[in-house]
């Protein structure tokens, strides 16, 4: 198989996540989102990419977005990174429904990641 063929096949193959792993990650994210506002200002981890180069990464703004979503300030959350709102909804759903496995489209996941990056590049004035 050519590299292009392998890439196309990888993009078509659905991603599959273990439900228990997602519950742990989702629970930690929600816990951190509730705890961080109680800590002193600047207690969150800075983005290494932005610290080193000034360029944001796709996940920049997620801490703010998740904490603001949990405080029900959706305007602030969406302004920081819209994916944070989706991540909170997904985490609550995974904890409530407790699926054994979660499948998602790889293409959709990569497009979402690219869109998140574009959003952050735009937010910081790069595009």
């Amino acid at each position: 198989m050519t590299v292009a063929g392998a890439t196309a096949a990888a993009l078509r193959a659905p991603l599959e996540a273990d439900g228990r792993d997602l519950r742990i990650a989702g629970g930690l994210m929600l816990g951190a989102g509730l705890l961080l506002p109680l800590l002193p200002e600047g207690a969150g981890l800075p983005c290494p990419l932005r610290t080193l180069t000034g360029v944001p990464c796709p996940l920049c703004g997620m801490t703010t977005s998740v904490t603001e979503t949990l405080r029900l300030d959706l305007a602030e959350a969406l302004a920081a990174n819209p994916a944070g709102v989706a991540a909170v909804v997904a985490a609550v759903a995974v904890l409530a429904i407790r699926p054994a496995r979660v499948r998602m489209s790889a293409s959709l996941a990569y497009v979402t990641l690219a869109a998140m990056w574009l959003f952050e590049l735009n937010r910081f004035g790069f595009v």
Partner: protein
Amino acid sequence: MTEPAAPMPPAPPPAGGYMPPSGPSGPRANFGQRLVAAIVDAIIVTAVTWILLLVLAGIGDEGGAIVGYLLAIVFGVAYFAYLEGGPTGQTLGKKVMSIRVIDANTGGPIGYGRGVGRYFARWISSIPCLLGYFWMLWDREKQTWHDKICSCVVVPTDAYPVQ
């Protein structure tokens, strides 16, 4: 107890290029195990680093602090490279959580050279807000970016016991 065979590379996709979802090619350490192991290792490395810095910075000049930082990096490289590259593939954190690092193709130790490489590949995983670490959540082989770069997997020791 019979040791299971080394993890096999994924089967080639069927004609047409579509690859249906399937589990990893063998048992893998889960996210929680790897997270706790990483926290234990971080505590150990940070504690030793602070001791080095306190001792050397206590000398009183800037040179002492710089040497302290360099020694801290050297300790970090040595800790992960020696323990993960060795025959067990286990840092202290991984030992606590009963998981180990093995070669993705042979199932054997990754060796000290790749242990050093895996340490620095962690930096790449960390750069975009730890995205390279979270990658294991949806990766078919449950590999982080530094696992992929060094062609290794992290497995539970009950399925892949230390020799």
